[in-house]
């Protein structure tokens, strides 16, 4: 029984990162109506940025957030300006398809570059406190992963606050609801798009740092995390960051339960199956409007 509980704890710990990963994707999809399938690759890049910040600059991995988050935001601005900014000019259907294809091309390029630059090997960040574990009620909770969960939650909370109290946060939400009405309200919708995309990339970079510090990073985690984020977005629907976070945790727990029931290799499959089922049954998600 406690083996199962242990698995569930670990599932919750990674579930928070799933939620964070999904939040970025959800923001971009909700506002720009663009499904960026390169989102996982952006997470991967964030992970490598943290890894190299630690390896080359000697930074503490959590401290590297100070460097990686601004870098990610900047990357988002560049990607929007160079790529996605062009697709948002089309009508919704063309926009969806073209952005899907562009995201796909971007993912391929980023993945191949990562393989070329850093090889396909898995990298882990090693820290002096890396092995520390807290024991609670007979269950061991790795400190690094717990800290990651807390940070993820704080970031999501901060994001929620930004969206409700920041002038541009409200503008972003308005644009997501009805971009023409937003224009009529005096909101520069293109700038809202840019901000949302940059924030989405920033969230991806943050998630990447937390992934590489608590787990590992390699070029192939891109597709994996894109799928995780997609699963959670479809589960939780758009419109609530907290809901997305909870959805991530649910996915983590579901994976833990399925690993316990069917064995380790099928951990991945259960999430995908849930995804397909929910997609067909309720494309708007469980929490979504």
């Amino acid at each position, binding site marked *: 029984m406690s083996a199962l509980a242990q698995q569930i704890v670990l599932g919750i710990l990674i579930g928070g990162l799933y939620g964070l990963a999904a939040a970025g994707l959800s923001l971009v999809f909700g506002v720009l109506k663009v499904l960026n399938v390169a989102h996982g690759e952006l997470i991967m890049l964030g992970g490598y940025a943290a890894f190299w910040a630690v390896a080359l600059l000697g930074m503490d991995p959590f401290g590297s957030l100070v460097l990686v988050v601004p870098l990610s935001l900047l990357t988002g601005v560049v990607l929007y300006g160079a790529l996605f900014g062009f697709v948002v000019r089309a009508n919704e259907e063309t926009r969806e398809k073209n952005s899907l294809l562009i995201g796909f091309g971007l993912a*391929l390029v980023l993945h191949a570059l990562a393989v070329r630059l850093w090889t396909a090997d898995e990298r882990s960040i090693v820290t002096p406190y890396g092995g520390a574990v807290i024991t609670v009620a007979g269950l061991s909770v790795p400190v690094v992963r717990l800290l990651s969960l807390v940070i993820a939650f704080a970031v999501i909370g901060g994001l929620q606050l930004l969206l409700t109290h920041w002038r541009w946060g409200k503008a972003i939400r308005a644009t997501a609801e009805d971009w023409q009405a937003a224009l009529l309200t005096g909101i520069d919708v293109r700038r809202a798009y840019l901000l949302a995309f940059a924030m989405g990339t920033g969230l991806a970079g943050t998630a990447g740092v937390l992934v590489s510090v608590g787990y590992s990073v390699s070029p192939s985690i891109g597709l994996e995390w894109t799928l995780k984020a997609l699963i959670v977005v479809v589960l939780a629907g758009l419109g609530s960051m907290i809901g997305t976070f909870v959805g991530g945790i649910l996915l983590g727990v579901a994976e833990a339960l399925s690993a316990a029931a069917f064995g380790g290799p099928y951990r991945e499959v259960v999430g995908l199956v849930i995804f397909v089922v929910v997609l067909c049954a309720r494309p708007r998600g469980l929490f979504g409007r």
Partner: protein
Amino acid sequence: MTPLANRRELAWGAGILLSLAALALLPLATRRDDVLNFVFLILLSITLAESWNMLAGYVGQVNLGHAAFFGLGALVARTLWSLGTPIFLAMLAGAAAAAVFALPIGAAAFRLRGAYFAVGTLALGEILRTTVANVLPEISTLPTADIGTYRLSHRYYLALALASLSVVMAGLLGASRAGLGMRAIREDEDAAEASGVGALWLKLFALVLSTGLAGLAGGLFAFYHISYYPSHAFSPTWTFDALLMTFIGGVGTVHGPVLGAVVYVTLKEYLAVRWVDFHLVIFGGIFITIVLLLPGGLVQAGARVRRLFHRS
């Protein structure tokens, strides 16, 4: 929307078939295995790209799980063949398995809008790959007797036949009334439905053709390789390759996927020696450029250059 049966496309189609016929003489002209292997890969890629194009180019649905059908075809064909079934029948069974598997998926998935359909099929492909990798982790190898009698030329001619078949199928489909209806769906599904096009049936029809052809290609793959990991045939790389080739060549045309396949495989083989996977950086970049600037692919680029010359 220019009808497919215009003279330029027919000319291209004829030219391709003639080239394929000429390629039939290749094994007589050379004994070099690497040349035959290279052309084999091109022929397999042509089949794969044409199959993907049937859903994406004609109906307009982006199927990111195409590898699932390729893999299924390979799996069924390999299994039956190793049990003694003649390879032709085994491959047909593989194609049938893929098409039959596709039907319920299509019935459920075609209710989804574009992006959801794409990621849904992506997920499905991954489900299959992971499951096969867990259920059949051991490498699949031909028995020694068969290795002894392995004839590359047989595989080569089969690939040639399959590539020709895919080109002919694509051409016939494009010129048919069904093809016209599919194109109407691609342009505007609601309008097409309103004018009585029967969207779901046409989409399923295209899906069956697309996945059946992919299944045949998978069977060919299973026939060709002496040993391989069964889950490798389900790898999303096959889908991505088909996507890249089709778009770069020119989605929605008959000759586009052929052109794309030739360019893609050639450049990939050329780069593979020194820069593994770097071809993806180049092709990814070309792909993005095409999506943004030249949606018709290289085929359209050719037409534009032609127009430039005609004007001057």
